[in-house]
């Protein structure tokens, strides 16, 4: 299939789960390929359709790093036109309001900046640990090591956590240019190197963290040295996350639960442990969320494969968008109840 580069790729925003993921993937792919796109029915499946402010923030950030021509870039707009120029590395500062996650902005611009010719320093302000978005620790500990193996040179530092709804967090990301990403295969976990349960609280009693760790310790049979309580006193608003980190020789996986008013600490910790136990029942290295994240870099690398525990609806949406922009074929096959093989092949 060939498409003339100048004719915008038509993306239907109502496909798949119809959320913001399809928009973010389109923005990234458009900057990576230099091909313009027009998206219609943005978030058609949602209660409040159209661009919300955190989507607009992602569009504006993408527009800034790629000098893109924009149309329809306003709140509640159901259509957007995006015509990217070359991506420039450099110093950037992006802030996002209340409900917005800085990590979703980073997810949109990270790969284009990796493949730019100049290094970048990106300061992100807003939420760093938001529900319905990958938290800082996930990108830092699970995602970055994998794309580092593919050649990406990224360092990121959490200067101040920002929880929903107060926000006010700050993350600094350094990107060194790399000419291209290498295909890799991620089929085995390798040997288990470490386990940890981390409970972070901000402006709420430290006991909440202790209760979460107590439950995590019992459920996952952890030792005292594998528990870590963090009191993030520097953060602006109240917040709480509970994470289980499993480090293997080939990758690290991380599972997160977000505390909120009215949810008991034990319930939050139990649900997070449920995720970790489910992962441990399988031998596939890539968890549900990481699978969503890895599709894009592997597609950009032009090949690769991985084994994962499940295919989410985000995953399916991403496959559809990626195949529109890039001449690749993504095949999936189920191996057993908790293992899928995903293969990315160039020149479909």
């Amino acid at each position, binding site marked *: 299939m060939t498409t003339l580069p100048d004719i915008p790729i038509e993306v239907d925003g109502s496909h798949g789960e119809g959320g913001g993921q399809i928009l973010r993937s389109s923005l990234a792919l458009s900057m990576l390929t230099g091909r313009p796109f027009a998206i219609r029915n943005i978030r058609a499946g949602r209660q409040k359709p159209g661009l919300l402010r955190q989507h607009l923030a992602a569009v504006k950030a993408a527009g800034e790093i790629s000098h893109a021509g924009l149309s329809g870039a306003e*709140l509640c707009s159901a259509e957007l036109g995006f015509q990217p120029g070359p991506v420039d590395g450099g110093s950037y500062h992006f802030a996002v*309001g209340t409900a917005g996650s800085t990590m979703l902005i980073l997810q949109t611009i990270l790969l284009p900046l990796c493949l730019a010719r100049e290094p970048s320093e990106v300061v992100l302000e807003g939420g760093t640990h938001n529900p319905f978005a990958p938290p800082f620790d996930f990108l830092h500990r699970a995602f970055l090591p994998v794309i580092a193996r593919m050649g990406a040179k990224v360092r990121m530092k959490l200067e101040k956590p920002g929880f929903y709804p107060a926000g006010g967090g700050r993350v600094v990301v350094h990107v060194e240019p790399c000419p291209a990403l290498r295909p890799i295969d991620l089929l085995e976990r390798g040997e288990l190197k470490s386990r940890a349960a981390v409970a972070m609280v901000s402006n709420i009693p430290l006991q909440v963290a202790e209760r979460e760790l107590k439950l995590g310790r019992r459920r996952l049979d952890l030792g005292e040295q594998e528990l870590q309580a963090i009191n993030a006193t520097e953060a602006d608003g109240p917040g709480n996350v509970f994470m289980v980190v499993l480090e293997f020789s080939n990758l690290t996986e991380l599972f997160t639960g977000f505390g909120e008013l009215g949810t008991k600490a034990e319930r939050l910790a139990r649900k997070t442990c449920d995720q970790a136990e489910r992962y441990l029942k399988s031998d596939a290295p890539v968890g549900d969320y990481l699978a969503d994240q890895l599709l894009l870099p592997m597609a950009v690398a032009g090949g690769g494969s991985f084994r994962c525990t499940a295919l989410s609806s985000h995953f399916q949406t991403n496959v559809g968008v990626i195949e529109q922009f890039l001449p690749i074929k993504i095949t999936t096959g189920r191996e057993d109840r908790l293992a899928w093989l995903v293969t990315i092949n160039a020149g479909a």
Partner: protein
Amino acid sequence: MVIDRLELIHDSRNSDLAETVSTDVLQVSPESEVSRTVIDWKNPWDFEEVYGKLLDFCQAYPFNTDEEQYLAHLTTGTHVAQICLFLLTESRHLPGMLVQTGPSRRKNSALGTCHIIDLNLSRYDSIAARYHVRAEQGLDFLKAGIKTRNRKFNSMIEQIERVAINSKSPILIMGPTGSGKTQLAKRIYALKRSRNQVKGELVSVNCGTLRGDAAMAALFGHTKGAFTGADVERTGLLKTADKGIVFLDEISELGLDEQAMLLHALEEKRFRPMGADREVESDFQVIAGTNQDLHECVRRGNFRADLFARINLWTYQLPGLAERREDIEPNLDYECRRFEEMHGRKVRFNKEARKLYLDFATGPEAKWSGNFRDLSSSVTRMATMAGPKRINEAIVDGELERLRSQWMHQHPGDDLLADLLTPDQLAGLDLFDQLGLRETIRICRQHETLSEAGRRLFQVSRLRKTSTNDANRLKKYLERFGLNWSWIRETRMTSD
């Protein structure tokens, strides 16, 4: 919703709080810019102070409605401040919409709620529809439920409806006799009454029936013994109409003294009854009716220019029935209903009879010189003839014959001579004589006595004569047509 700029108004005592709020706003909404204005209130519950200072703020603010949209946040501040912001927004001193914010309805959600309120009521379909229904009801009221079709008439009624509801100023209704002036005045009163805009009564008076002392006494009242025959005290119609409406029909017939008193009463809302030492107060609205050209009356000196100027504000010319032929059918139905209400008996035409009548009534042959009065009498006659049965073609035929002969000798818009002369007499008169006689009668009716009328009519020749008996000359002129003074005067009094 993204707010580009937040104008935070606070007093200097709360600067620290304002600083915290600004910082919080910028953290939660990095897209926004916060601009602070200090207004120190002596008393934030004092309406005058708060309104004045907020008005100053609005007037000094560089609003740029082409580039920016504004929202007035009503959720914070004293209730007085909220009321003032509302008023300033409603009066467009603050050219935007209102916004009301609040916490989320769901217990655990940090995301609040916000409601934007546009005060432009026409934007709201259901409200606009209700206003429309109410306006329609008002129009219906004025038209007594008659579905009139004449465009000019309908648009005039629409205007009258607005004026009637919004204004207490005098209304002047001009129109030929029988065109419905009295009816319209009654309905304007009923409309205002239904909207609670008048508390008092509707007092209708035909100025043509008021003469001399009696006129003054009737309008303004008198004390006991104020003049010969004033045996008891009388309140006066204008006092009776306090907080209500007085309908002065044939206002051109009012004497000059009464006109002066009326003007005073209108302007001062007070007047002095005859023989009284003190003025009484009365706040009434005037509706005036006339079939005369008041400009002409002013020119001739029979009507005070200042009074005319005072009542000539909302002036409406009611067209005659002949000019509203498309309204004859709905009015025919209305007259039938009215007859039914009065006599408790249905009035029906058979199909052919109705068509026959309407064809004639809307055709060029029908003069309708007595306007609605003619139509009403016509329906009464036919309904009476038909008795309990339907009105048939024979009855209509007879009625058309009667109408034809009634209008045969009349000139369009002229019933002055027809009132006084028989059709046969009129038929025997040259147009030359008709014109002279008509004007002479008109002048006669504007004067109290035969002598006064004579002086006016022979105003040049009387100066040259040695002995002047203008009254006699006039009397003889009238006798040539079989008319006399008292008859001319009497016919006038009953003519409307």
